[in-house]
């Protein structure tokens, strides 16, 4: 196990699109262990994506079970080749990033998503996620597509009236 170096803005490698994982072997699983150790070492990191440590493969880890106020979550998840197949509603909340130290901003994300992925052994996974956990998955999958939350930050002022109108947007079926 090792704590890996985290790439930070403005490293151009963070803009790189990551490749799907094709081989589910011990080397992959050893890397995932290192990625998890790196996540735990990061200040208050809930999630992490492989490209943040310079490995451009579609692997993310998130754990939304430790928020101050409990939120709906599936515990610690290792998601290989994650793909969001359904989005619903949207809401704004504050995000930060291990790759963007000392900065947080408001980002609009889908309220509910359906996500499919593989586990570290290559078995299929599927989840319905909402709120904070859905946000986590969207933030991390953005990393796999070379996108940072700073590319999506919006002003609270600009968004105020949208929020009023669409406050229940997440509940529309």
């Amino acid at each position: 196990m090792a704590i890996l170096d985290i790439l930070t803005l403005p490293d151009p490698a963070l803009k790189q699109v990551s490749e799907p994982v094709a081989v589910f072997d011990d080397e992959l699983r050893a890397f995932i262990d290192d990625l998890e150790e790196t996540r735990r070492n990061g200040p208050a990191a809930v999630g992490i994506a492989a490209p943040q440590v310079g490995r451009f493969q579609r692997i993310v880890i998130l754990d939304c079970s430790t928020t101050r106020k409990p939120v709906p979550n599936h515990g610690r998840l290792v998601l290989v080749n994650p793909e969001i197949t359904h989005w619903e509603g949207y809401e704004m909340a504050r995000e930060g990033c291990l790759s963007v130290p000392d900065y947080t901003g408001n980002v609009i994300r889908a309220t509910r998503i359906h996500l499919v992925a593989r586990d570290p052994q290559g078995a299929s996974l599927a989840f319905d996620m909402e709120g904070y956990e859905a946000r986590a998955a969207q933030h991390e999958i953005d990393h796999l597509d070379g996108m940072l939350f700073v590319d999506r930050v919006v002003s609270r002022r600009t968004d105020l009236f949208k929020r009023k109108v669409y406050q229940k947007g997440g509940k529309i079926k």
Partner: protein
Amino acid sequence: MTNHWYMLTLIGEDKPGIVAAITQALFEQGMNLGETSMLRLGGNFTIMMMVNGVDDETGLRERLEPVIEAQGMCLHIDPIKARLHEHLLPNIQVTVSGADRAGIVAQVTAALASAGFNVLDLESDVAGTADKPVYIMQIAGVAEVSVEAIEQALETLRQDGVDVNVSPIETYIG
């Protein structure tokens, strides 16, 4: 470059090109910008910006004079400590809306202060129409106490018909 930082406050009637003109003048005189806030309040454009560089207060004023005059702005300068890279993370947000009347901001912020809430960011707008103005305010801040304790501190305002929402900010870091 000196290590002295100044806060420039600039205010003038809003029109296109103010930011470009001011920041170009600062750039040409070798000044460096820190964090800034620039926004339109009513029909006025307001700028607060941290700068440092070769000029001291007198130099800044002299060299900015022509562009300030051309843009029809007022300038105020204060020496400050920069304290960059020390962002505090807000953990509670409060939104307030109600018919505009004197004292809303004072009452809400007094209640928040009594609960130990430190305001990091407060934005307020007068919405509605001239006949029926509505006051809308969003506050983000840090408090050691719970959301419930903040709610309690604001309870009397609610009874006065002000719509107040308090919610935790759970910042996602990933």
